[in-house]
């Protein structure tokens, strides 16, 4: 048991799975020079046949990963930053999500596409997307957005072993967080199993990715005011652990979603609708959504950060919700 960071968790998961199964290989842009430190030592361990730098051609190499997976390989594609998935939308949406279905189950596409959510650093709109919810709108893709190093490792290892395509979103605001990590090479966290990050009784904060540490910070402050917040981390969005969310809301009677995505059609919106549909009778107030404001992300530092979810916004929403007698808005 040793403390490791989020990025080290990714490296360990990939290293262990490539060691375990020779069908697993990694490809993407600048893997060998290893921009973020998730493939340190891989070329020495596995050679350039299984650690492949690709040309900058996301649709091409993500499509090639699809083809390789269909013939029995298990590729991990590192697409670096999640905005770079857009040039590959055709292969992700039309080939990877749909091939198994349109060929009546004849195809199997066991591949993982990794990309980071790289926002909050003055990288402007094209490098600051938090776009997992877009992919939730098409069936056939499993989607994970872990918030801790522990979850990252266990879920990424499970994703590599999964026979369906998985999109792995790595929230860069969680990169430096550390967890105690089990040594077990078969340490797995199944996709579709959420986690209660903090127990509470007055309200449920259902938070995604980088929203989780914010929710925990908010919960600590709220506790001092006598408000007991439960923090629920779904960890994967497809499949979504609906039960853990509904169970929590039925217990607390109040719900706030925290989602770094833009609000419209966000994962938080879907979760809010789920709660309204299945736990309405338990609710003592409206379900509030904390999300990123619906504008593009600007470059200029003084005006960027205020657009994202923050502990302060969560605290304000919680106070109003717990004390609410009148209509509330976020």
């Amino acid at each position, binding site marked *: 048991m040793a403390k490791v960071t989020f990025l080290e968790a990714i490296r360990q998961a990939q290293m262990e799975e490539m060691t375990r199964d020779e069908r697993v*290989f990694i490809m993407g842009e600048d893997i060998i020079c290893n921009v973020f430190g998730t493939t340190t030592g891989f070329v020495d361990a596995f050679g350039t*046949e*299984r650690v*492949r730098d*690709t*040309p900058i*051609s996301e*649709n*091409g*190499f*993500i*499509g*090639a*990963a*699809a*083809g*390789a*997976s*269909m*013939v*029995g*390989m298990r590729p991990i594609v590192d697409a670096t930053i999640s905005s770079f998935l857009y*040039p590959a939308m*055709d*292969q992700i949406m*039309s*080939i990877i999500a749909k*091939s*198994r*279905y*349109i*060929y*009546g*189950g*004849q*195809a*199997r596409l066991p591949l993982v596409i990794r990309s980071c959510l790289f926002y909050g650093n003055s990288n402007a709109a094209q490098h600051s997307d938090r776009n997992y919810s877009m992919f939730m709108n098409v*069936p*056939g893709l*499993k989607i994970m957005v872990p918030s801790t190093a522990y979850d990252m490792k266990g879920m990424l290892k499970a994703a590599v072993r999964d*026979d*369906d395509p998985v999109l792995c979103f790595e929230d860069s605001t969680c990169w430096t967080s550390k967890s105690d990590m089990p040594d077990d090479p078969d340490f797995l966290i199944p996709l579709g199993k959420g986690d209660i990050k903090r127990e509470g009784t007055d309200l449920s904060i259902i938070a995604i990715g980088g929203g989780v540490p914010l929710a925990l910070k908010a919960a600590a402050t709220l506790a001092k005011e006598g408000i007991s917040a439960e923090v629920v981390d779904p960890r994967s969005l497809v499949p979504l652990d609906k039960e853990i969310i509904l169970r929590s809301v039925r217990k607390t009677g109040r719900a706030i979603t925290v989602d770094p995505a833009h609000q419209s059609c966000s994962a938080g919106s879907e979760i809010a609708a789920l709660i309204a549909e299945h736990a309405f009778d338990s609710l003592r107030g409206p379900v509030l959504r904390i999300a990123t404001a619906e504008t593009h992300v600007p470059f200029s530092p003084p005006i960027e950060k205020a657009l994202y979810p923050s502990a302060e916004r969560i605290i304000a929403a919680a106070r109003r919700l717990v004390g609410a007698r009148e209509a509330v808005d976020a």
Partner: protein
Amino acid sequence: MTDGQNDRSLEKYRRMQRIRQFEDLAEAIHAQGEIPGALHTYAGQEASGVGACMALNTEDYMVGTHRSHGHPIAKGAKLRPLMAELLGKATGICKGKGGSMHLSDFSVGSLGETSIVGSGVPVAAGAALGSKMQGNGRVALCFFGDGATNEGAFHEGLNIAAIWKLPAIFVCENNGYAVSTPASVAVPVKDIAERAKAYGMPSIIVDGQDVDAVEAAVAEAVERARTGGGPTFVETKTYRYADHAVNMGRILLDRGAEVDEWRERDPLKLYRAKLIAAGTAADLLDRIEKEVADEVADALQFARDSAYPTQEEAFDDVFVDRLPIPDFIKA
């Protein structure tokens, strides 16, 4: 040798006949409303598909297009599940979830017939990568039309295959039109094969109406791929008789006498004449045509006798495990 020609020649003739007769019947019942959706036929291009596939082994991979009836038949697929798919039946090759644009029989090496133009090219490159990494000697052949060569996916896929020297064969079935747009106004080079030069990839231009010529060209490409020589680009000059999809004439150009001129060089007619000139008895070819007619009729009967999928099956094959079935579907 059989009556002056070998079994291989007769097999090529048989497969071309299967495609033609399968589609003639499909078009007829589509006109009567028995086949739902659109029907993009391959008639006129049979020598291209059959010639290319005869140069492959059964376990070699193949990726195709929305014009998906010809490729699996050319690769040796059985007709019953293909016809059942056209009718949307549970016994269809895709269990009634793909239909006319996706007739893909994985048992003969098919990895999909995809209806997004150009999208099969990266997939084929990836299958070739898988073959190379596994060292299994298989090659991956990708069919696409002239229109696909304007797509980014085409260029990205060719580039990847070229830099990694993958065992891939890219077969452009240049039938002259992308829906209604002539290649002459959408492609700035006379021969699409010229585009392979940008990737340092050898190319071959071949008469797509001559099944033997296509087979020879693709066989050369397959040999290069299997021996580590990397990918080859093959352009088959061919033609489709029908509109982009049957009964879409309203939106298409009047192609005038052009269709009749190409029908003069119909691949089946040409090959029948060639076989007879080489000593094959006309009776033998007649018998093959009759056998194929029986096969096609049997396939239609099988399709008609088959059940539609159950409503619950709409939730199969999204993932490896069936999705939960919503209450309004259960009720």
